């Protein structure tokens, strides 16, 4: 059992991060923490990609004169992660801009308060 966990340690980390992120997104009433939760989820997925690209004993996938042959880590997941990070940054930034607008409008960062105000409108 322990062995099985140890072998797949990184995957467990991914799962735990994902769980924490999702929980934060759903349960936290604070909008900023919700966004942090979403970020955690995204990070978990980046880790998942990096993990599955890992090759034991492999070198970085950079082609140079010396290391043409030999084991390489797959470059594709890295490209994916890079792109996904950029996407994540854009989403986070937009979320923060919106949260600032909400704060100006509602004078609160808590979802329950905002909903209360909206109901009373």
């Amino acid at each position: 059992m322990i062995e099985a966990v140890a072998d797949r340690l990184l995957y467990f980390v991914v799962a735990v991060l994902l769980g924490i992120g999702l929980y934060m997104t759903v349960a936290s009433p604070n909008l900023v923490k919700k966004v942090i939760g979403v970020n955690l989820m995204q990070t978990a997925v980046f880790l998942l990609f990096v993990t599955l690209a890992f090759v034991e004993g492999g070198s970085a996938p950079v082609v140079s004169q010396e290391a043409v042959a030999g084991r390489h880590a797959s470059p594709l997941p890295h490209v994916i992660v890079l792109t996904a990070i950029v996407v994540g940054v854009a989403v986070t930034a937009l979320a923060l801009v919106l949260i600032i607008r909400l704060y100006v409008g509602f004078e609160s960062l808590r979802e329950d308060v905002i909903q209360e105000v909206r109901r009373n409108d």
Partner: protein
Amino acid sequence: MIDSFAELAPAILVGLPILAAAFPLLLGRLWTRIGWWISLVTTLAMTGIAAVLAYSVHVNDAVHHHLGGFAPPIGIELVADALSVWFAFLIAATATVVLAYTYQGGPRGRAFSSVYLLLIGGLMGIALTGDLFNLFVFLEITGIAAYSLIAARQHRDAAYAALKYLIIGTVGATLYLIGVAYLFMATGSLNMVDVSASLAGGGSADIGVPLYDEMLVRAAFAFIFAGLATKVALFPVHSWQPDAYSEAPDAVTVILSALVSTVAAYALIRVTFTVFTPAFFEVTPAATTAIVTLGVVSALVGSILAVLQSRIKRMIAYSSVAQFGLVVAAIGVATGPIPAEFALAGAIIHLIGHAIMKGGIFAAAGAIAASTGARTVQEYAALARRRPGLAACVAVLGFALVGVPPSIGFIGKWYIALGAVESEMWLVAVVVFISTLLTLGYVARLLERMYFILPEDAPSAVVTDGGDGVSIGMLLVVVLAVALTVVLGFLGGPLFELVDPYIQEVLHG
């Protein structure tokens, strides 16, 4: 000539709006209206290109464009086949038409034009890409553009709706990405066709045995479906949609309702039939059950929630939840053990039809709000006397939504119903037929208020600010939607012929 041009058309369709998106930002200082004209020229050009591409694909064969010249499975490819070209055309044409609405109806400004074009580029990318990860990127581009457009209305409620959509949408996209990661683990590839072949035991992975019963693959499907269901707004994860549709500026609601969820549903069809293929569902019947159940529940609950709404835009938004429920149920039916061509045709046609009808209704609701200030069912009282033309358009589109022939709404529903009967999924069949009555529930409520409330019964507190703010462009959008809805209602046969090649390919090899 056309063929060699068609080879390049997919890249132009995706690249052009993104390129054009840069110009309003740069040139907006010179002339405030320039963003609109840039958008118009771009979308018109795209419509033309999409039409040529569609013709070429229809006459000849699917077009594959390898980005950077790298062949799949390593490179990313854009694919224009018998399914994607029609959606590409729908996107380009709708984007052009909605511009007519925004000329006077707003929102305006260079930032709006840029984001609008970015949205079109993202949607086009979803329609044309042949790569699973690339699909994610375009989903997110579409998402970011959509969130920004909703927030373009300078009201705190709009910001709240945008943030809600952002959080739910991003979680959905993340779930989708996990699914893609699992598929990548299983097959080592991201190209849709290659992944599909690898799952069947061939492809670049070349394992020799089908991977359909692998837990990894099943989990991948579950994650991808959950992610896309969020973007489509199926029942339990639909909650962003009513807020987003009702808080966005009217013109943005039109384009959102017509295209955004539609294209997400298209992505679901793509993944379900091109990547996983019916063979997967044969091994995993539970997946079929799950899709069908979610679709059916969504169709029922969405309609019921729609009846309960008092604000027009929210009501129509919940109606979208219900209609997409029908579409997803049809997708599920088509994956069932008995190959149901009609169900898949129904899903596709209803998707396109829904885009036209919903876009039209939202445009009409926007025009009505602009001219009379009426935004709730209550305020629509005796509207037929004040705005007979718009009221009539709402009536026609409403009945089309119910599924009254001759209308595109009927054609879609007929195919879905027939598909359900064909594959002997009686529950779905019953729900499709019952949904007529449910839809009638909220449509009739609206019509009754518009036509059969005497002026003295109408609330005197109808807001009349804004004055007569209806422009010709707004009316044009509404009338065009009505005309298309009715005319396409006579063309169910030809419509089927157009998507039939794709259906034959995925269902019968």
